[in-house]
């Protein structure tokens, strides 16, 4: 028996999970070594951790409001892209194409700086609607941006519902709108929820761009303190770790949600299995 065979024989004793745990531990050890090699000022990092953490509620708030705005926009966008009404279809096509084709940061500035230029044409009481605060601007930009991306998700979701479903509904005398609302959309939304969760997680990270117009969220706090004390790397590492933690937490909940949603489509209790 050579060494390799012996190693393989021993390895077979341990479960995949145990091996995976070992790999993760090794990665963390390597990270710790790397961390030490950077010679970060840990006292400084600990000192400012609470200040940076205080941006988390705003980061989460912005992301949640952003996704709440993105979902209806995405739904309208998806329906528009599938619509035979040229006006509705055209507007949706432009929305998806333009928003996906321009950088989010430009959109944030456009809403924060550009929109107020239109206020002068609005009647007095409505002018406030054009001059948005930083948080509102950020939420609007994130919502509109993600709405465009998610419109494609929802469109795919709608198209995944078989034509037989539409025919069955129409054969029962349902109108097109009833068919869409009662039969197609509920099924489309069910398949769209997992990718929507992914978008939400991505949005948590992209909410950092909203800091650029001066929202005191996570990234803004980290970068200001970094500049103030000339230790950008330290504060950005803190921010990165917090974003990672946040996205990990939401990924966990998303995984659970996904398993729950699968339940209605499973024959007998237990995990999902195709047939």
């Amino acid at each position: 028996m050579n060494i390799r065979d012996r190693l393989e024989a021993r390895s077979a004793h341990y479960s995949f999970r145990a091996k995976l745990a070992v790999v993760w531990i090794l990665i963390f050890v390597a990270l710790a070594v790397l961390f030490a090699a950077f010679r970060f000022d840990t006292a400084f990092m600990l000192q400012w951790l609470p200040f940076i953490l205080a941006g988390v509620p705003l980061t989460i708030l912005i992301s949640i409001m952003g996704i709440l705005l993105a979902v209806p926009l995405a739904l309208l966008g998806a329906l528009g892209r599938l619509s035979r009404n040229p006006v509705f279809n055209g507007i949706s096509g432009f929305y998806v194409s333009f928003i996906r084709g321009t950088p989010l940061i430009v959109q944030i500035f456009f809403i924060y700086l550009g929109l107020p230029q239109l206020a002068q044409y609005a009647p007095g009481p409505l002018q406030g609607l054009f001059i948005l605060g930083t948080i509102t601007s950020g939420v609007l930009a994130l919502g509109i941006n993600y709405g465009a991306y998610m419109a494609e998700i929802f469109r795919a979701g709608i198209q995944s519902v078989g034509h037989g479903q539409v025919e069955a509904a129409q054969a029962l005398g349902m109108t097109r709108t009833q068919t869409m609302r009662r039969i197609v959309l509920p099924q489309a939304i069910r398949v769209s929820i997992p990718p929507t969760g992914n978008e939400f997680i991505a949005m948590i990270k992209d909410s950092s761009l909203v800091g650029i117009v001066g929202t005191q969220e996570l990234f803004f706090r980290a970068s200001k303190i970094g500049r103030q004390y000339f230790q950008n790397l330290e504060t950005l590492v803190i921010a990165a770790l917090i974003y990672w933690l946040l996205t990990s937490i939401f990924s966990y909940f998303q995984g659970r949600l996904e398993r729950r949603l699968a339940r209605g489509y499973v024959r007998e209790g237990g995990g999902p299995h195709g047939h």
Partner: protein
Amino acid sequence: MQRLVSLVAVLGALSVISACGGGSAGGGDGGDLLQQVKDAGVLRVSTDPAYPPQSFQTESGEFKGFDIDVAEEVAKRMGVEVEWQTPSWDVITAGNWNGRWDLSVGSMTPTPDRRKVLHFSPAYYYVPAAAAVHETNTNITDPETDLDGKMIGVCAACTYEAYLEGSLNIPGEYEYVVDDPQVKTYDTDSSAIQDLALGDGARLDAVMSSLYTLKEAQKAGTPIKVVGDPLFYEPLAAAIDKEAPADPQPLVDEVSKTIREMHEDGTLTKLSQKWYGIDLTERQGA
């Protein structure tokens, strides 16, 4: 029909969100800007809290610094409270604030370009501009001669860049002593300083910035050192948006008057001593 309903729902949601943010913008009616500030009892001041000792935030999020104290004193003399806003620097200097805040007390140099969009108060202090090199550097000792042809980092579109390009355009006489520098611009002074800290000549040979920004970096442990005497002094003033929704002139007059009073009664000198250790309220040198 259903589509219409959902469209209306979305628009409704949008306007609710808008209302949350738009509320503080202060309606267009109700007199001039000064009157509105007094009616609200709140002076909304923008600051970029990344520059100790002029403006920074403590661990608990409190705003501190020379600019902060000056603004709070101005507000106190007007009988109102300060509310801080933290838009990015280029958004402040570009004007067109759309009534989001009333006043900038942010150590801003009144350049002609900025004068096109902003009203300025008289200068409330003068900051020396200096050069720094990596602490291991030995061949740059006198910025008047040794910086020629060197790679120098500065903030983009700020007075230091203009100085190196020989196009400084602010009140006063200036002597441009650095010949043919290679200018590398950064989003802020802080980024330039951190790049210089990587090593002598690694990316930069020197950085030009406010003497106090450089000293603060040194104090924070950044391996750089200031060399020679200040290259010039720049006046720094408070600013107000020319395109404010309500007439800004009375507020400009009021702030200017207050700053002159603070010069005369020694308040500014006292604050300068507190934060900088010396009196920077009079123009010196150059």
